[in-house]
Structure formats: C-alpha cells, structure tokens
C-alpha cells in the first residue's frame, strides 16, 4: 500500500458518481479520480485535492446526466411520460393544495368545511408523499440502468410545472397563500428523486453481490 493511498476522497462525491454512472463507468471513473486525487493530495495538500475532487465530481455528473439524457432509450422516455400521467391522475396537485390550504380563509370559495377537515388534509398530505415516493420507485425501476436520469427528469417536470402555476396564480391571488402548495409539489419532486436513489442503490447492491471481488 502506497503512502498516497492513505488519503481518502470525499465519500459523498464518490457515492454521487456511483449513482449516476453505469457500473462499468463507475469502476473506471472512480479509479481515475482516486489516482489523480492521491497524486494531488501528496503534491498540493489534502484540502486542495478534496476541492478538486468535488469539482471534478460535479462536472462528471453533469456530463453523465447529459449523455444519459441524450441517449435515452424509448422505455426511459415512456416511463417518464407514464409517471407524469400517474402524478397528474392521482397526485393531489397544486390546484387542490391551493384550495385546501386556504379553505379556512374562504379565499378559494370553500363555503362548507367538512368536520374532519384537518384529518382529511393530513391524510392527503401522507397520500401525496407516499404516492410520490412510490411513483419515483416504479418509474426508476422501469427505466433500468437510467434510474437517476428518469427520476430527476420527472421530478424536474413536476417542479417546473408547479413553479409556472405558482407564478401564474401569484399574479391574481395572494402570494403567501400559494407557498404551501408550491412547497408540497417540491417535496413530491424530491421524493420522486429519492425513489430513484432507492431503486438505484438496491440495483447496485444486488449487482455487487452477483459479482464479488
């Protein structure tokens, strides 16, 4: 074992590359990065080498994401579309959250509040969060090998769509009243991506078990 090998690169950066790269790419990319990192750490110091590693990792992930997105096979594009359809059909959504969030203030014309209004709101909140995580997992599982690209694309579509609605509605309604529905859809987007991370991690773990060192 060489002296340089005692320097450890940032683990989170390595984990992120592992998430976005195919197993073959991850093997070579992480090996190359570690080789240069060790060299830099012994020449310019560990702090500099860690900064360099992070910068390289971010740029690498951007390139990998772009390459995966560009070469996306039909089933990956199809799973994003199906995921968006499911979210549109079953997700409580921006409009509904805007109405529910402001029912008590009669801003959106809710004349009669049900007796179990708070319970209903909490139930819907849990439903939305579980649904988002489940759809993230299903869509990523369908797009085998492109889990992260698919989940992030779906999450981004949902996030951008909600932001557009937020901006359009803000012009005619009270800005603060729309923040909760916007945050809800952002949380849903994050959970979709988290679903992708879970599926990817499971796949990586089973791939490693199948090919022991």
């Amino acid at each position, binding site marked *: *074992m*060489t002296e*340089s*090998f005692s320097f450890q690169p940032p683990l989170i950066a390595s984990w992120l590359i592992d998430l976005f790269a195919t197993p*073959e*790419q991850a*093997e*070579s*990319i*992480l*090996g*190359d*990065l*570690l*080789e*240069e990192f*060790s060299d830099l750490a012994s020449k310019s110091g560990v702090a500099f080498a860690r900064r360099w590693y992070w910068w*390289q990792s971010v*740029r*690498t*992930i*951007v*390139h*990998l994401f*772009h*390459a995966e997105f560009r070469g996306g096979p039909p089933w990956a594009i199809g799973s994003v579309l199906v995921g968006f359809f499911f979210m549109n059909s079953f997700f409580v959504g921006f409009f509904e959250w805007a109405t529910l969030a402001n029912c008590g203030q009669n801003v959106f014309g809710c004349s009669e509040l049900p007796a179990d209004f708070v319970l209903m709101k909490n139930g819907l909140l849990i439903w939305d969060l579980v649904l988002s995580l489940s759809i993230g997992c299903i869509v990523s599982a369908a797009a085998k090998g492109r889990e992260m690209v698919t989940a992030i694309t779906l999450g981004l579509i949902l996030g951008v769509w909600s932001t557009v609605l937020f901006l359009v509605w803000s012009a005619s309604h009270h800005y603060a009243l729309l923040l909760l529905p916007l945050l809800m859809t952002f949380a849903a987007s994050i959970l979709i991506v988290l679903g992708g991370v879970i599926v990817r991690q499971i796949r990586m773990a089973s791939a490693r078990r199948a090919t022991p*060192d």
Partner: protein
Amino acid sequence: MSNRDYLGEFEHIVILALLRLADRAYGVTVRQEIDLRIGRDVSIGAIYATLDRLEAKGYVKSHLGDPTGERGGRSKRFFHVTAKGITAVKRTHHALRSMTEGLNLATRYSQ
C-alpha cells in the same frame, strides 16, 4: 458508416489523444494529454461520455487492465482506436483541409 460521418470537435481531440498515447491511453492520461497539448481542462466525465459514444460508433475499443492499489483496487480501462476510427479521423482531416485550403488564415485573417 456513411461518407458524411465526421468527428465532432471534442471527439476529434480525444481520438488524437488516444493515437498519441498508444497503449498508455486511459482516462487520466487522456485528460492530462489534452490539458498539456491544448490547455483545456476537461472533466473525466466528459472524457468517458465521449469515449463511450466513440465506442458505440465502433471508432474505439476498450479493455480492462489489472486492478491496482493506488486506484483502490479498481481497474484501468484502456482504449485504442480501431481501423474504422482511423478512417473517420482521415475523413475529418481531409474535410478540414479542403475547407481551409487557400484561406491563408495566418496572414489574411490576423487580428
């Protein structure tokens, strides 16, 4: 491969780096060669994304070396240019030469 298949700018640079490095061409050396020759600091991800695309087109081939301790037990992935890749480089060079012929870039367009 059609006669109109030319290499993109970065594909061209990467293939030339592989040709220069011969049997020493893998991610780190390709990145360093490009930095050394043209001063362009490219990410390792950009190198691999391009190499994977070139491999899919049949212009380069890769094989794994032995795992080494300095790489945390990971293997180096070595690349070499195929005959089809050489043909693509020649075609691209020919196209560039044809397009620049008679332009006298050094004097006529100097700033």
